């Protein structure tokens, strides 16, 4: 243990880039594994909601094991499929688009604090960085739609562009509320601002309840998931922006989509449900194993929102396009603007949470 620590410090002093690279791997590899098994969870959970079994054949070493080998089998299958590039497509942009979807979804984790002080880049403007990167993710979809040289793909891209730009505003305003409440743009400080004697009642979800709900629903819309998945819209425009994609290029789109879903879930947990804080007041669980603050609470909260994503998909019919626009512009944005004022007044008036 001592030698490993010494080596780590030596690495940090002499080869800081190598140290950062190792940290990036430590975040990205488990995330990719989580993405793979998130697709498995999706099929299994929606299967059970619809009284089916879900995948249950592919296991390991000849045992089915409830189909746990399915994501790996899917990945291997997609890797060996041919990538078809349509005639008249812009080859460079066509292949760049999937990477532009995945890249921002991974880069956003750089400022994400997993526990107190456990963060890759502890920057002051962390919240701004997250908003900026989630807004860049739309380029993958737009460029994919345009470079495919296909009408269906193009229609999907147009829908997606308008939808994401609209919901980004509501999302940004919801985060302005968090910023007002916590008085900081640093994600770690935002979590620490939610610490209090009330346990789970000290978190921001209670005073910022409308913003909390709006943030998560806008997050669902931002990630193009059901019931806001008009960009794909199988029943209307085949598969939307990724009709022309096959093999690994297609899979990278889905890696990006699921990585984005996990990111939005984790961010909602971080900003409204106290991140790694324990739901019990600190004085009750001081020193009790597992009940105190810790990384496992963050995982648990993230999984709750991940489950909500799947639940929405299994139960809600797809929105009509004009209703999506109405919800974004005429319902969410006015509510967020009003609630930012309410939060500002609560902070100034030293109400409960800010006493």
């Amino acid at each position, binding site marked *: 243990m001592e030698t490993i620590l010494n080596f780590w410090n030596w690495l940090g002093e002499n080869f800081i880039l190598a140290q950062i690279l190792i940290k990036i791997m430590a975040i990205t590899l488990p995330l990719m594994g989580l993405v793979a098994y998130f697709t498995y969870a999706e099929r299994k959970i929606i299967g059970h909601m619809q009284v089916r079994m879900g995948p249950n054949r592919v296991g390991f070493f000849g045992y089915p094991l409830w189909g746990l080998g399915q994501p790996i089998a899917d990945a291997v299958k997609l890797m060996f499929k041919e990538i078809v590039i349509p005639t008249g497509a812009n080859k460079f942009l066509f292949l760049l688009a999937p990477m532009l979807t995945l890249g921002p979804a991974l880069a956003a984790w750089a400022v994400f604090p997993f526990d107190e002080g456990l963060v890759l880049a502890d920057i002051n403007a962390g919240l701004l960085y997250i908003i900026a990167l989630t807004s860049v993710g*739309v380029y993958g979809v737009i460029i994919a739609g345009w470079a495919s040289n296909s009408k269906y793909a193009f229609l999907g891209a147009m829908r997606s*562009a308008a939808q994401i*730009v609209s919901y980004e505003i509501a999302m940004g305003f919801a985060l302005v509320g968090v910023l007002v409440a916590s008085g900081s743009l640093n994600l770690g400080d935002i979590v620490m601002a939610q610490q209090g004697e009330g346990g789970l009642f000290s978190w921001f979800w209670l005073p910022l309840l409308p913003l909390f709900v709006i943030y998560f629903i806008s997050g669902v819309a931002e990630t193009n998931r059901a019931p806001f998945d008009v960009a794909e819209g199988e029943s209307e425009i085949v598969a939307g922006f990724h009709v022309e994609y096959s093999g690994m290029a297609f899979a990278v789109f889905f890696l990006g989509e699921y990585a984005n879903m996990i990111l939005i879930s984790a961010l909602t947990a971080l900003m409204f449900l106290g991140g790694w804080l324990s739901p019990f007041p600190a004085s009750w669980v001081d020193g009790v194993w597992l009940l105190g603050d810790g990384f496992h609470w963050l995982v648990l909260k993230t999984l709750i929102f991940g489950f909500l994503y799947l639940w929405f998909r299994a139960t809600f019919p797809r929105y009509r396009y*004009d209703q999506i626009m*109405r919800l974004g512009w005429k319902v969410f944005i006015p509510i967020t603007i009003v609630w930012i004022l309410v939060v500002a007044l609560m902070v100034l008036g030293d109400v409960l949470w800010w006493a």
Partner: protein
Amino acid sequence: MSFEKFLFYAFSAVLIFAAVMVITRRNPVHSALYLVLAFFASAGVWLLAEAEFLAIVLVLVYVGAVMVLFLFVVMMLDVDQAAMRAGFIKMLPVGILIGLLIAGEIFMVVGPGTFGLDQVAAPERLPADAQNTAVLGSLLYTVYMYPFEVAAVLLLVAIIAAIGLTHRRRGDATKYIDVAKQVSVRKGEDRVKLVDVPSEEKMELK
């Protein structure tokens, strides 16, 4: 050459390359995408200048919102290349003249006579925990309060003007959805109509 200097020149080179590509590409979509690259590169330069708030806001506002809408429009345009290039040689002298004028003006403002380390001392390095956002915010809301508010009002006027110019009702020929009416529909009385149908006579089998 220090690493920071290397980064500065790398970002600047990408910025100049992207800016040149923006005005030379034939395809307007490619031009727009190079403009996005130019914004990213200038955000990198601003980060090196310790203006992280401005850098991130540049990406957020211009790359995340403005350019998306730009691409949205440009992708749907059917640009006639021949018409765009008509009279290129005839207009070239005027273009060169205007270009030289702008270059001259820029040179007068940031030329070697008014700019450089001997004219303006290098600013002190900020400490690691400096809050660029907080400093900018307190300046905007104290020293530059009135210009800031005037800019905000101007933007509001622009929004109202843009909506006023483009918003029109197309008369009775177009059907509009009244959302309030849709939302207030009740399942019982509005959607389902219960009709009393007399049961049929029992058929006699002969």
